[in-house]
């Protein structure tokens, strides 16, 4: 029988920050909080940086050509989180310049390996919120 749960907030019973869900294959369980992305963003680097859409991102700081500080609304608990992303510029690359609890700093490189504005960049953050 299908069921619907209507709530605004969920917490674990044993530990408020730990809700367990069952794996797709049914052989394992995993932490819901650890698997959920803590931030994501789709932004454009150009003369002015544009936040096209995002989650838990309060602002973008233009630090130079292709260089963008993505500032979080809710900060991370430490700087050992994971930022993964891609940028739209032929064979160009997206690199990480720094990560701090309140931001992740990404730089887009063009095919000549120079920092450069790209049409669009996407990024996702996994880790522990404060």
């Amino acid at each position, binding site marked *: 029988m299908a069921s619907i749960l209507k709530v605004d907030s969920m917490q674990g019973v044993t530990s408020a920050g730990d809700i367990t869900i069952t794996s797709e*294959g049914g052989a394992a369980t995993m932490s819901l909080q650890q698997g959920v992305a803590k931030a994501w963003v789709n932004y454009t680097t150009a003369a002015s940086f544009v936040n096209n859409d995002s989650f838990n991102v309060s602002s973008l700081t233009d630090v130079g050509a292709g260089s963008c500080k993505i500032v979080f609304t809710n900060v991370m608990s430490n700087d050992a989180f994971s930022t993964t992303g891609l940028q739209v510029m032929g064979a160009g690359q997206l690199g990480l310049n720094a990560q701090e609890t309140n931001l992740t700093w990404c730089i887009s490189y063009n095919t000549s390996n120079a920092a450069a504005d790209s049409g669009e960049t996407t990024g996702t953050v996994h880790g522990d919120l404060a």
Partner: protein
Amino acid sequence: MASELRVNTLKDAAGANSVALSTVANGSAKAWSQQDGATAVANDSFNVASITDEGTGDASFTYTSAMNNDNYSLVATTGYKAATSVENSIVREITTSKGRVRNTNDSGTYRDPGVYCTSVLGDLA
């Protein structure tokens, strides 16, 4: 006391923002890590049992809970060796128990980055 709730759909209290629990499970990362590029030590991670330094610019990690098959998504981004350096990350190997990433500089030569950041989405076993 631990408890178990079995539902198909989650909604907020107003009945909006409906999401199937299968979407929550499928959309959640099954593993992530930030690991030191030189020492192959995990600075922090989820569902990562061990990390192996496979050589210069070459690191792998094994999962605590294995994936259901090798058709999952492994995304890696590397960086901050130096503010001006260009790091290119390459997914080298994907198996149900292991992910492996390589890193090169802008000339295509393998080298250790400052960090490897990875995220894994797909089906757990």
